[in-house]
């Protein structure tokens, strides 16, 4: 396995070796964003902050799909549980900001662990259905548990604090706070994926039977991964509740679950960073689709279908898609010019292709 990692790293194409330039551009655009938009009070909360928390939650879904091969529809619910944790601590118990945030993250992560205990033994469509069902169970609970969630009225107001050295009520400060969290979450996901734990997860994704034969406890690894993804989703839930200043059953509804799935698919179901592009597309559609049609949700659906048809790996996968087309053209040209009938053996199916084509274990 180590040999393979080495081989991959040394055989990187030129553009891949300089991909950090792309990241500098992305982060540069994100940092400059508050200073170039004409109405920061609209653009920062409605587009910037919302895209970031949607992206963080969707990143947790992508982490599970990319490294474990599990498509979870419980991530919005876990983020919602974290949001309810913050709301309950702040509104019902009157606790301070840091305690409330810790409560939310612990609540969401524990909820993820419990989901994992139930769902980790299943795979593919069964895992998807169980996570969806658990999400709907919590939605029903949140809609009616008046003592805990205040039923449909929800918990409000949840105020952002002025910490003295930093005032999160200032929208620009809050935006940078959330941007920093998003970057940290991304780096954490990449770090975990590169650890021996992450490598084992990738092995389990590709062949759980082989990994079990090697002595790995597959279900424990899956539970660990689902719990870690829940931790990431919980951070997204904390940002969500601070942005919305309230939490109600809407945040754990089927619509919210589908929003996360749409973000992940449009951005790239196999791309940790691509989710933020997907989130940007969704927030733009939410805000501006009505300028083109009254049935704005239908337009979102059309965009979703177009992405699935023409860019199944999402926006983040367009680059690879274009590269594949160019490579194919080059091969065809060289075939006709050289006339060498010898063909290369077909390349092994990439994990991304395996995922997008449904090879879940």
């Amino acid at each position: 396995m180590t040999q393979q990692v080495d081989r991959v790293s040394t055989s990187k194409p030129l553009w891949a070796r300089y991909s950090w330039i792309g990241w500098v551009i992305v982060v540069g655009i994100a940092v400059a964003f508050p200073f170039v938009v004409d109405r920061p009070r609209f653009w920062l909360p409605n587009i910037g902050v919302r895209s970031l928390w949607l992206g963080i939650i969707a990143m947790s879904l992508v982490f599970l799909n990319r490294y474990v091969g599990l498509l979870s529809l419980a991530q919005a619910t876990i983020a919602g549980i974290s949001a309810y944790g913050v709301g309950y601590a702040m509104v019902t118990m009157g606790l301070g900001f840091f305690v409330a945030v810790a409560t939310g993250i612990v609540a969401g992560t524990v909820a993820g662990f419990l989901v994992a205990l139930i769902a980790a033994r299943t795979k593919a469509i069964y895992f998807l259905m169980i996570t969806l069902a658990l999400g709907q169970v919590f939605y029903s609970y949140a809609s009616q548990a008046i003592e805990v969630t205040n039923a449909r009225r929800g918990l409000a107001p949840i105020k952002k604090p002025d910490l003295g050295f930093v005032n999160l009520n200032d929208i620009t400060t809050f935006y940078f706070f959330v941007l920093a969290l998003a970057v940290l979450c991304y780096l954490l996901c990449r770090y975990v994926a590169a650890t021996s734990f992450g490598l084992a997860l990738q092995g389990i994704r590709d062949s759980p039977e082989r990994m079990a034969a090697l002595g790995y406890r597959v279900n424990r690894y899956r539970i660990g991964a689902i719990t870690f993804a829940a931790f990431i989703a919980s951070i997204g839930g904390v940002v969500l509740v601070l942005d919305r200043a309230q939490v109600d059953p809407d945040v754990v509804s089927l619509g919210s679950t589908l929003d996360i799935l749409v973000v992940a698919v449009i951005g790239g179901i196999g791309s940790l960073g691509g989710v933020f592009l997907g989130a940007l597309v969704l927030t733009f559609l939410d805000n501006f689709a009505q300028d083109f049609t009254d049935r704005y949700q239908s337009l979102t659906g059309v965009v979703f279908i177009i992405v699935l048809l023409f860019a199944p790996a999402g926006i983040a996968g367009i680059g690879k898609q274009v590269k594949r087309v160019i490579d194919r053209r080059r091969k065809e040209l060289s075939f006709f010019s050289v006339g060498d009938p010898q063909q290369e053996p077909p390349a092994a199916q990439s994990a991304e292709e395996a995922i997008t084509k449904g090879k879940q274990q």
Partner: protein
Amino acid sequence: MKLRNKKGWVPAVAVGTTLILALSGCSAGTSGGTSGGGKDTIKIGVLATSEGNLAFGMDEAKAAIGVAMQAIGGTIDGGEINGKKIELVYAGTDGTSGTAQTQVKKLVENDGVDIVFGPVSGDEGEAVVQYALTVPEVTFVNGSASPVAMTLQGATNFFRFHGDSAMWMGGLGEYAYKTKGYKKIYSIAEDYSFPYDNAGGFFSGYCAAGGQVTGNSWVPVGTTDYGTIISQIPAGTDAVYVGLGGADAASFLSQAVTAGIKLPLVGGSIAVDTTALSGDANIKAVAVGTITGGPVPGVGYKNPMWQPFVDAYVKQPKAFPSPSIFSILYYNSFESLILGLQQAKGDLSNKQSALRDALGGLSWDSPTGRISMDSNRQAIVDNFLIEVQAAADGSLEQKTVSEATAVKQGTTVYDRFEGCPKS
């Protein structure tokens, strides 16, 4: 096995950035200018449902606004008041709090509206009030959202020109006890905030009049089996309160027929609407005689303002055959806003104080009775007590049997309760 560690990022970033810039280009054309008090244009942002269960809300809102604007020579897109140009901007929602938050922020921060008008649903209303607290420079006039708590949040820039869902039952409790003689009532209601307020409004009046509650069943929305609950109704109960809506109410009425229930019914404000009454031809046996309360008058309502409103409403594009609860509440609210703007002579200077003073002191005769305002910027309104009757053609109709005038808002936000509600 292939381990994942790198992606084709450079082309992806290029494509993504291009997409964002393209979308930004699209959006820039939609940005409205801010129109402060000294300007000649007053921009009103209308929030209504155009997707989801209440997708017809936008059409109903436009029909109601059309009636009010045409009366002053305008259209649903705008007009003129005291020399000031009125411009209307519409934002559709799906009835959820999240979408309402997104769209109301867009109206205020991107489109630069001076006044927000709406929303439709209670979930949206709670979210919009929270937002109103953060933008005191903008005036908010509610559309049809009816949670009690909305005008009790201390938002001095928020006005509601119709009753809340507890007020909709105003006078019905006393009517049930004294006129109908129902001494003991069993309650079946859906388990969420609207039925809490609605049932709370009824039972607070009923218990104050001397009535007793023999039991409460709070059922989840979407319950289809009411046989078990019906069998639990204690002997000696005089009537059953049905705080259900839509398909749930239709299911209950149908099963009440099957179970041979003989007790008269008291309906919540949405229990005996068209959906429920047209659900099953056999429900006449239990539906006839059902009393309910609400802001919509039934057959036999005498008010000289009513028929002209109905006539003007049915001429609007996409209007229903008769006004729905949404168009009535949106009309009364928008007409109130127009009257307020006229009284303030379109002056939005000094933090819109002239407009807010005018709105807060408004008193006028609407198609559904006199509307005046209390100190919480909540309307004091007339309420209608309705009884379901069999029409001459055999169909079921709702007849106005009584009116409760000048119903005021209480200060109780109701939660789920057992027996009589705590006030």
